[in-house]
């Protein structure tokens, strides 16, 4: 390993419409290192990467690659210099096949004719997928039909197949479960051995300690510092990110568990899942674990009325809950925080105010007229309660950072004052501070007697907040653990189908 910086960014400035997002940021990456880029939601991590690769133009500062000053005006130019990015937002073309996505923008053709070499591309796709340990993804499948996790694996496969010198991964594991993460880490390790640099952005602290060599922290668009991972600790990183001590990761639970609120009996839906039996009590948090594609989301959608069940019964306070539309569930006091905030959670073009009001239109209106005052009060209250970082309630949610978007989704469901709240991957892409706030809110709700079902692929989180844990394996219930009974290994064992 040599000491030469592969990429060096100095005193980078960037503003969006007067809003300074990066101020004097320094960031350098050496050849063959795995470098973590950390910071709260909205700290400017993704923006820094986009400035580096020429998606955004910089307002000030210099960038050198292998000692030479560069100005990229298009990501393709960065790619030519060996810099490849796996973006935070999925860049899959849904109607194209896996192979077509893998070779997007760099199709193999017969000479310069532009005629595609389809067979060759398919073979290479299979190889790349095999290298990542996901040979179960069929190269001819339409990418849009795959789960988000598999789509993410395609993007990773695409990036590592380019022979890049530096691969930037912006939250690559947000949609992955442990098995995929493990094989991703193996690939990262072998890339490092080949001298490839990796910039790794993630909000999952465990991963940082597992694979990274050095860490750079940003806060509010400012450069805080760079440290070798060995010389730092969880608490120290959090302090650099947040600017203060955060204390315990998972707040103490102190709610009193009451009567059964929701009871699910022998629920089934076509080929998705069957034989689902469980209860949730008032004031209780039920964690739902499982591998990607186990069908957890489908179970929740069915309970919520967004999909039709084919068998079974759902009881709310002992009375059958017959829902044909999410509207019915909302009336019955059920909230559902969907896993995909962009497609299912938010109307990106609308403001925070309008998004939050969406589930609460009845409450903020009178006889069909929306009352501005009531709406303002409700929205401002929730923004404050959830510490949404924003320029105001009228900001378009599109321009919020990922974590803050997630908070807006939570806000809109808190507004309905639910009796039962279902959260599907609620902390996906959310920073440590915000995560804690979300756990705190969950606790507060349970103290008021709200029942919570939380689907999560992050085992520490499942273990940290749940009163009970239900594990789903291939559409069937594998096991239910009480708090304290479970550990990571037992859950993984059940989730992978072991007895």
């Amino acid at each position, binding site marked *: 390993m040599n000491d030469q910086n592969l990429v060096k960014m100095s005193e980078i400035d960037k503003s969006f*419409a*007067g*809003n300074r997002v990066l101020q004097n940021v320094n960031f350098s990456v050496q050849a063959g290192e795995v470098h973590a880029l950390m910071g709260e939601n909205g700290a400017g991590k993704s923006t820094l990467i986009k400035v580096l690769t020429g998606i955004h133009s910089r307002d000030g500062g210099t960038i050198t690659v292998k000692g030479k000053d560069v100005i990229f005006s298009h990501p393709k130019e960065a790619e030519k210099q060996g810099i490849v990015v796996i973006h935070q937002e999925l860049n899959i073309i849904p109607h194209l096949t896996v192979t077509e996505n893998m070779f997007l923008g760099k199709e193999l053709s017969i000479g310069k004719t532009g005629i595609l070499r389809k067979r060759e591309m398919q073979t290479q796709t299979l190889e790349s997928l095999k290298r990542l340990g996901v040979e179960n993804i069929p190269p001819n499948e339409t990418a849009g039909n795959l789960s988000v996790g598999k789509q993410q694996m395609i993007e990773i496969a695409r990036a590592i197949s380019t022979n890049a010198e530096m691969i930037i991964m912006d939250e690559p594991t947000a949609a992955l479960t442990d098995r995929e993460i493990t094989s991703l880490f193996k690939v990262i390790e072998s890339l490092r051995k080949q001298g490839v640099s990796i910039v790794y952005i993630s909000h999952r602290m465990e991963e940082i300690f597992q694979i990274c060599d050095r860490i750079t922290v940003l806060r509010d668009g400012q450069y805080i510092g760079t440290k070798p991972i060995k010389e730092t600790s969880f608490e120290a990183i959090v302090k650099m990110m947040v600017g203060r001590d955060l204390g315990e990761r998972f707040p103490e639970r102190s709610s009193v568990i009451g009567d059964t609120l929701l009871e699910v009996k022998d629920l089934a839906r076509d080929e998705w899942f069957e034989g689902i039996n469980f209860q949730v009590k008032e004031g209780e948090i039920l964690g739902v674990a499982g591998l990607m594609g186990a069908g957890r989301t489908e179970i929740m959608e069915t309970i*919520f009325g*967004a999909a039709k069940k084919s068998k079974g019964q759902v009881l709310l306070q002992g009375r059958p809950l017959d829902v044909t*539309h*999410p*509207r019915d*569930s*909302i*009336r019955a006091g059920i909230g*559902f925080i*969907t896993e995909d905030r962009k*497609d*299912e*959670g*938010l*109307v*990106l*073009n*609308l403001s925070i105010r*309008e998004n939050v*009001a*969406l*589930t609460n*239109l*009845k409450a903020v*209106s009178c006889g*069909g*007229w*929306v009352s*501005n005052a009531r709406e303002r009060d409700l929205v401002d209250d929730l923004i404050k309660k959830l510490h949404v970082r924003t*320029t105001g309630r*009228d*900001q378009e949610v599109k321009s919020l950072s990922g974590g803050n978007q997630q908070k807006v989704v939570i806000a*809109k469901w808190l507004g309905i004052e639910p009796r039962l709240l279902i959260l599907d991957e609620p902390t996906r892409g959310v920073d440590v501070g915000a995560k804690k706030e979300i756990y705190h809110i969950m606790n507060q709700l349970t103290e008021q007697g709200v029942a919570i079902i939380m689907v999560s692929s992050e085992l520490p989180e499942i273990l940290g907040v749940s009163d009970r844990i239900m594990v789903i394996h291939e559409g069937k219930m594998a096991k239910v653990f009480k708090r304290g009974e479970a550990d990571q290994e037992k859950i993984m064992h059940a989730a992978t189908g072991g007895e």
Partner: protein
Amino acid sequence: MKKKIVNNLSQLGPLIGLIIIVIILGFTSDSFFTMNNILNLLRQISINALIAFGMTFVILTGGIDLSVGSILAFGSALTAGMLASGMDPMLAVFIGLLAGLLMGAVNGLIITKGKVAPFIATLATMTIFRGATLVYTDGRPITGLSDSFSFEMIGKGYVFGVPFPVILMLIAFAVLFFILRNTIFGRQVYSVGGNEEASILSGIRADRVKIWVYSITGMLSVLAGIILTSRLNSAQPTAGTMYELDAIAAVVLGGTSLTGGRGWLTGTLIGALIIGVLDNGLNLLNVSSFYQQIVKGSVILLAVLLDRRSK
């Protein structure tokens, strides 16, 4: 804060376009800025504006309605037929509007329950409703409408010197503006267009919202048709042909996005004014009809380029 201003400026794009056109016409034609011409112009645009208001709702939900012209024709013919057979004018108008509502609802049902793309669904009903109009009228205009004062009033009347169609347009604008901005329904229109799936998961019955939106457009189209019928003292089977293009143009000129979820009714009014002012001005200037098309197309293009934004 700054963003807000920029946002508002970009919303001003169409308005600036309109003002420039108006200034140029004011300089080149003596008659443009007379009170008479302005009222005349407003009356002329009222037809297109009413249809375009409905179209704004439809486009905000991410849809499109090509059948407005045919609905206009059928509604007019039906109303005229009832009038000619001696029915009470107000009752005839009411039934006509109801028919418009129903035709719109049919569009909405095909689109939501039949899951047919709005473009193709309303392209089909455009043909069907036109055919129905031709069958109903046997391809001839319906004349000999009643001499009822109230029916004549709709298209030809004045209130305090303002043409009645203009008043109808302004009332419709005010009501719809209010609905879009201040009611639950208005919110639902924006959110269904912005992200249908998220709206459904938030408990909004997207299908219902869409059916209503097409129904409203159907009714407004017939209202426009009734004004036309009253002004012409007859209903034409070919009335409203190509009106859909003018209405869509008004909406898009006004800055409403064809992908749904983003737009405003005021913009549509401005868009309708741009088109109306152009037609009026080109007539006043007696531009040869061949060149009129070139000028009209170019000005529309310039107005949109002023308001340059993608998709």
